[in-house]
């Protein structure tokens, strides 16, 4: 029996107001109506044998092992497919069922290799457990007859093996792929004795539609689908619950361990964001933690063209601190700054901003949310009063209409996408607003009712046109607006959206979306029942990113789709802790909990707690820091866990800014692109090596637990603490829980958050305080945080980035499933088998005009720069639009992107760049220069004798 396994109740739990009383083996039970007999018994500790049943899947009734006798009923019904009934008397152990079960097991085992002692699932195999449970003693049929014992294994997937010789054809994998993941990559091929699990059209898993989420591996009761890490190392011996460090979904995982070695990551059934599901990144792509390129010793150098040399932690910290002191004395306290990381924990982020504000003595702190969801913060705070999504993920189960704008959930937020697809298969309607035909538009069993394939940069116009239709056709929920919103602002907004330039016909000309589609989508959103909007960086990363967020908020308020489950405005946040890093006061103008630094009362509380006088002036944002560096006013920076050079727009400008600084301290796992410009490198710790909390896109605070000793020697919060101490600012925490205590004391929305409560509840959605001691799943019920919801005028202003004769195409960017952002981690895992290079998607019409064939090298040029990559000719993008990912440094996609940015928050306009594409035969000059530079600036001098 697997010592790490979570209890499996056999069939899913049921929610019902009515309880049913029955007797199982003489024990009186009361369970919700609709519960299966199998689950009712298992909940009471009566473990009826089972093979094809597992509580993550609906009952299937194929293995015939869970048969029971029920008084007054004929035969031996399968307990998994039999719902409980009042007064039912069930016997789970009788001579009849015992004989049946043994006979069934005998048949299974007659076509199963008897290699238990050397099998990778030995000790973690349900077939083995059931053979014991039913008392199997002999197999009368021998092994001479027809069998499947010689079928070859499929090793094509880098993370798991499919060995059909061990398959019992229970269909758990097929059902997991369909029902949980929603990919339908598996089937049972053939019939009868010939039935076998097949991927795609009986091809290898890698060649099939499989997305390697691992749900099948988790569902398999035998060694048929087994993690290669288990095959190599043996079954795990203990499990620690922690939180994934990839995207903003925040999947809860059980790190299954042998000693300090991770054997596998298994999504936790108790995880409230993921309910036992995961994607290829979270489940499998954690090998970067022990990758040979990880830097484990601190490095320093005097000049960035010197090689690095390894030093002790004391020397590295002392060197960085003395440089920061020197710079402060020479150029003034405003010449220093810091960048917090949305990849690190809340506690670590809190300490970095505290270091900047309290030890550097200014507010020059910013975070990578600057380049992703800063418009969400600003837009939702202005309209609703708080800088966060309004719902929990469970809310999608009650949505009737789902609107996806500028997001690609199946690639970017795959676990949430699977839940969304479940709801869509149940009949919810779907509207996709995106320039590209993302998978959700049409993929097995999912079909969008409307796909508004708008021209990049016209979100605001299309959203205003939808509002126009809603107001024009009297679809506004006036009761909601009257009772919940500011009426003056509403009236002004209603007359604004009715202006002729917002009519669908006018917007059709601007956006390229047919007026009828805009009208249809608007009516569906307003009248289709519970309507929920999910959006991503395709909304925010525009010159009008904040405007678009407010336009979304307007739509939700106008239709009354706020303040209850199934509705709301939901930013799909990119990084594991981007919500948290913003909550923790990472922005130059805000202290923890989104309170402005100019607020004397707020600052006073921090002054008292921290023993300093905080600056009342907002500090510099990242782009301002870079500009100030080029002007010679900004000289030293401490960057925790962000690769600014690769991820920020207009790479050449960023590089110039870093080259102008005198002390760049990079605190990261790997020598990244920014480290090429650094003077001090502090090795960071991975999420497996530290304690803390992450906050996901639904404001859910979840524990991160240390499962192994930090290979670099310290958890990240300890490193920041050492830096503060070296700068003579006292920081003395023994554990991140003490940092959380300080956060709770200073931040009203976190007032009730403690590690004890997190351990007790599993997770908490902020705000968590005296009025909501267990947190807040759905916000703005019954009233908006700011009091009355505020409609904002959202006039469409075209971006200054225009196409013209020289740059006739529009470039937009995105991510793919197997890779994560700039790929620092995922490129160092076997996930590269799914993505060897970034490619440029181009429409066949545009490709033909330029003589470009699929797979050709092309030059991608904008006003800022040029790079080259391979072309993929596809009608997924509209004519006039090209698309690429930015996962690989070789591609240098941000050499091309511009410095246009959101008017309110400076969030870069990554999603719109005017470009030209032409055939080429290799790398551009910049790529060659960059390669040489990166190579020469990442040398590490090894110490003699080591």
């Amino acid at each position, binding site marked *: 029996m697997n010592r790490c396994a979570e209890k499996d109740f056999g069939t899913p739990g049921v929610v019902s107001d009515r309880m049913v009383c029955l007797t199982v083996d003489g024990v009186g039970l009361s369970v919700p109506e609709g519960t299966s007999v199998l689950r009712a018994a298992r909940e009471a500790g009566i473990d009826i044998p089972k093979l094809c049943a597992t509580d993550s899947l609906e009952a299937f009734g194929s293995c015939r092992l869970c048969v029971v006798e029920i008084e007054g009923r004929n035969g031996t019904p399968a307990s998994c497919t039999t719902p409980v009934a009042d007064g039912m008397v069930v016997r789970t152990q009788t001579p009849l069922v015992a004989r049946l079960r043994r006979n069934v097991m005998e048949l299974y085992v007659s076509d199963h290799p008897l290699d238990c002692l050397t099998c990778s699932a030995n000790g973690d195999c349900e077939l083995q457990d059931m053979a014991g449970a039913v008392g199997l003693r002999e197999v009368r049929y021998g092994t001479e007859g027809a069998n499947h014992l010689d079928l070859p294994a499929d090793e094509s997937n880098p993370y798991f093996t499919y060995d059909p010789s061990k398959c019992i054809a229970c269909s758990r994998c097929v059902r997991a792929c369909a029902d949980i993941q929603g*990919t*339908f*990559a*598996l*089937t*049972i*091929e*053939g*019939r009868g004795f010939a039935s076998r699990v*097949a*991927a*795609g*059209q*009986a091809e290898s898993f890698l060649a*099939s*539609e499989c997305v390697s989420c691992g749900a099948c591996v988790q569902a398999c009761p035998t060694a048929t689908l087994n993690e290669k890490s288990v095959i190599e190392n043996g079954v795990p011996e203990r499990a620690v619950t922690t939180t994934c460090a990839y995207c903003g979904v925040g999947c809860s995982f059980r790190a299954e361990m042998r000693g300090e070695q991770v054997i596998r990551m298994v999504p936790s059934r108790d995880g409230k964001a993921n309910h036992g599901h995961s994607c290829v990144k979270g489940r499998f792509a954690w090998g970067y933690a022990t990758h040979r390129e990880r830097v484990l010793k601190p490095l320093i150098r005097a000049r960035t063209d010197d090689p690095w040399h390894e030093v002790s932690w004391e020397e590295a910290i002392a060197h960085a601190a003395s440089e920061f002191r020197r710079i402060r004395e020479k150029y003034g306290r405003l010449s220093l700054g810091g960048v917090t990381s949305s990849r690190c924990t809340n506690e670590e982020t809190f300490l970095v901003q505290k270091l900047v504000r309290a030890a550097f003595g200014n507010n020059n702190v910013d975070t990578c949310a600057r380049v992703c969801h800063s418009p969400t913060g600003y837009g939702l705070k202005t309209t609703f009063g708080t800088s966060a999504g309004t719902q929990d993920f469970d809310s999608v189960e009650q949505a009737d209409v789902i609107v996806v704008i500028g997001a690609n959930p199946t690639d970017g937020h795959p676990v949430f996408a699977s839940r969304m697809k479940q709801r869509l298969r149940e009949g919810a309607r779907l509207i996709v607003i995106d320039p590209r035909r993302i998978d959700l538009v*049409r*993929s*097995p*069993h*999912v*079909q969008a009712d409307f796909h508004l394939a708008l021209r990049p940069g016209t979100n605001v116009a299309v959203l205003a046109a939808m509002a126009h239709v809603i107001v024009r056709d009297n679809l506004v929920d006036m009761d909601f607006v009257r009772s919940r919103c500011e009426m003056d602002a509403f009236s002004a907004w209603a007359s604004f959206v009715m202006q002729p330039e917002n009519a669908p016909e006018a917007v059709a000309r601007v956006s390229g979306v047919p007026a009828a589609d805009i009208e249809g989508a608007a009516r569906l959103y307003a009248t289709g029942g519970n309507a929920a909007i999910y959006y991503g960086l395709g909304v925010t990363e525009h010159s009008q990113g904040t405007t678009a967020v407010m336009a979304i908020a307007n739509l939700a308020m106008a239709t009354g789709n706020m303040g209850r489950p199934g509705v709301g405005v939901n930013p799909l946040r990119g990084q594991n802790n981007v919500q948290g890093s913003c909550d923790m006061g990472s922005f130059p103008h805000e202290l923890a909990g989104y309170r402005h630094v100019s607020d004397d009362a707020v600052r006073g509380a921090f002054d008292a707690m921290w023993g300093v006088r905080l600056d009342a002036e907002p500090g510099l944002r990242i782009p301002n820091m870079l500009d100030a560096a080029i002007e010679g006013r900004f000289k030293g920076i401490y960057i925790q866990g962000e690769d600014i050079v690769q991820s920020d727009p207009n790479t050449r400008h960023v590089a110039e800014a870093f080259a102008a600084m005198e002390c760049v301290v990079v605190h990261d796992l790997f020598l990244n692109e920014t480290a090429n410009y650094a003077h001090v490198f502090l090795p960071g710790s991975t999420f497996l090596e530290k304690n803390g909390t992450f906050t996901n896109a639904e404001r859910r605070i979840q524990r991160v637990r240390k499962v192994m000793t930090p290979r670099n020697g310290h958890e990240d919060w300890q490193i920041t603490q050492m830096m503060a101490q070296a700068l003579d600012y006292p920081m003395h925490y023994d554990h991140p829980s003490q940092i959380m205590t300080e956060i709770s004391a200073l931040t009203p929305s976190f007032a009730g958050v403690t590690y004890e409560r997190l351990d007790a509840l599993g997770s908490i959605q902020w705000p968590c305080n005296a009025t909501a001691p267990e947190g807040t799943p759905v916000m703005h019920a019954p009233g908006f945080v700011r009091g009355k919801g505020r409609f904002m005028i959202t006039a469409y202003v075209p971006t200054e980035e225009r196409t013209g004769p020289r740059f006739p195409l529009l470039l937009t960017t995105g991510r793919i499933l197997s890779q994560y952002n700039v790929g620092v981690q995922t490129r160092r895992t076997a996930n590269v088998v799914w993505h060897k290079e970034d490619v440029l998607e181009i429409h066949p019409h545009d490709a033909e005009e330029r003589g470009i064939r699929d797979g050709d090298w092309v030059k991608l040029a904008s006003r800022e720069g040029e790079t080259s990559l391979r072309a993929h000719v596809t009608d997924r993008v509209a004519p006039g639009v090209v698309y690429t990912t930015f996962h690989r440094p070789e591609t240098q996609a941000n050499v091309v992107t511009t410095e246009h940015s959101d008017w309110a928050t400076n969030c870069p306009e990554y999603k719109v760049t005017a470009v030209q594409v032409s055939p080429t035969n290799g790398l551009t000059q910049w790529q060659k220069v960059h390669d040489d530079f990166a190579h020469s600036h990442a040398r590490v001098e090894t110490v003699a004798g080591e």
Partner: protein
Amino acid sequence: MTLGYHGAIMTPTGSLEARVLAILAHHAGREGALLPVLHDVQAAFGCVPQEAVPVIAKGLNLSRAEVHGVVTFYHDFRSEPAGRRHVRICRGEACQAMGADALATRVLAHFRLDWDGTTSDGAVTVSPIFCLGLCSVAPAVQVDGAVHARVSAEVVIRLAEGGT
């Protein structure tokens, strides 16, 4: 012009994809269209070619695996075209009781075939079938869709060779 099993117009020329798309177009909007489409594809091509599966899957918004699962579940859907005459010998219990096994052995030996094999000249394919429902007039066979009852091996061979 010929009509398929479910009435789709069988375009005799064009690429495989175009021909499958024409069949899909005929069934557009139909609930549970997969089986009718597969029947028409088999009528058009004599089998369900592997290359047709992705086209059907995309057209019906199913996964390739789902279509593959259905195709392989039914013995009647072939991966290769059958011979010009397709003989199905009933192997239901009633037919077996009336000597169908011996009959089958003789027919297979005559054409030098195993079950589901096709003669090298592409003339004849012999398959088993369970069952034709003609128990009262067993043994029974089906040749290209027409059933024949109380047959002997000689009769089956004659029918298979194009006789009547």
